[in-house]
């Protein structure tokens, strides 16, 4: 990974920031402790970088894209203790997206005071099931999975 970490393409940052704010209002705001206003692009940018810097897990894989019905190119995934997932290109130069994983449920339903250990175990099981269901393929677990 470059010493200065991955960066966002400006257009992609805007697009994904808007997507996060529109599709899951309050989610990132809750993570950032923001009340009453929507998260800014800058805050989203910083939070995605933090997810990489403080990640406990790193893995690579090709994810299945429902819209295109094909697998994306290999990407790198970074997961932090709040299960914010930052996805970069395979070279870890550019952010592809950043989201908060709550396993298909609402952010409120997911946020129930689970310990860091519980969230880590939950995420690892989730990745295993994703792999078994071919939602992601060619997975390389690099950190955080009891790899030898």
């Amino acid at each position: 990974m470059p010493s200065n970490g991955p960066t966002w393409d400006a257009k992609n940052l805007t697009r994904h920031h808007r997507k996060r704010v529109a599709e899951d209002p309050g989610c990132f705001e809750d993570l950032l402790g923001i009340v009453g206003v929507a998260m800014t692009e800058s805050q989203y940018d910083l939070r995605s970088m933090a997810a990489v810097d403080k990640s406990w897990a790193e893995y690579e894989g090709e994810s299945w894209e429902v819209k295109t019905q094909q697998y994306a190119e290999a990407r790198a995934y970074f997961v932090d203790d709040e299960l914010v997932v930052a996805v970069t290109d395979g070279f870890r130069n550019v952010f592809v997206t950043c989201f908060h994983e709550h396993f298909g449920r609402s952010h409120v339903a997911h946020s129930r005071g689970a310990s860091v250990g519980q969230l880590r175990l939950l995420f690892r099981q989730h990745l295993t099931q994703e792999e078994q269901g071919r939602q992601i393929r060619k997975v390389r677990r690099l950190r955080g999975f009891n790899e030898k």
Partner: protein
Amino acid sequence: MVPARRTLGDGVQVEVWYLAQHFLLSWIDWSGLLDRYVGYFGQDEEVFPRTWATLDANCRSLAGQLRHDRQLGSLIRDDWYIPVAVNRLAGEPEPSVQSVYHEMVTNHRRLTLLGALQSLNGDESKYASVDMPDGRVWLDASETAQQLNTDLLKGWVVLSIHFRDSVLWHLRHYQRATLLASWLAPETGKDGANESALMTVLRKEQPVIPTIEQFSNQVSVEPRDRDLLRRVLERIQTAVADFSYANFVEDITSADFFPGDASAVGSNAINLIPGNRDDDCRTILLAVSRGDKRAIGFPAVMRQVREHLIRCSDKTRAVIILCDHWSPPMLDEHLADLRAHYSRGVRFLFLMAGTPGRILAPVGVDLNLSP
């Protein structure tokens, strides 16, 4: 809270009950896979390292102790139940293919675990108590898992076909990855009473291939057209039986051939491919192919079928396609169109010439199933 250094690293703690649940689910995943591997590949259990048998026995013993921990059962029940309750309060997000897949797999694992815990010892009555009527393990957790299962099945039927197909695609991969063959799956009660939603939806997606006679009953047409369909099917089978498929194809594709009541196709009130493309649209289309390379090869004929279905989308209801060879990829490029027409009510019957070349038999094509 306890540390779990080996599993989670230094300085990370996890709830004891969650660790116990994680252990139990991981054990049943692993142990179940070993059993299915042995059964599926016809192997002996000794194919595995001896330490595995010891490990499994130790895990089984620990599981046997944990299942009598009522408090653990309650904590696990709360873990399974609360997200659903909160979801209802907070308003569920739109389900995604991924989330439905994960819910089905997760609840399948839970039910499998509960079934395994229940069967650890043969006689449960000695464990019966006020808290565990009839000796059932973790009654509340079991009821929660069963309710989730019921909810999953109820929600499944209202999903669109396309959505279900997408989920099934992932479920089939999970089924394959875990060797969850239907005959090796965890035992269920009578009539599949305890069957997980995952196994239910996979089981219901088994192909159904109608006979030639049943096909005519499936097509939604007027009685007069149904009689016509039956006559055409009977005539082409008879013509092929009398003259062979090769001769049948040669005759009806010749310039001398005109469909009629006494002809090899039984009627002039149908559309025929190869044939006159300017014909009026009819309820029944008969498409005849031979080989795969020429103008009457299967690929060329199928393209004409698709063109016809676009032109006659309001009229054609039954499509009979004859061929003399088959492999599953033959339909790949046509499947999307065929399934779209199928969803509109068009019914397809693929008949292949057998051995000797005087027999026609249905080919296994079920457009109602996901790929």
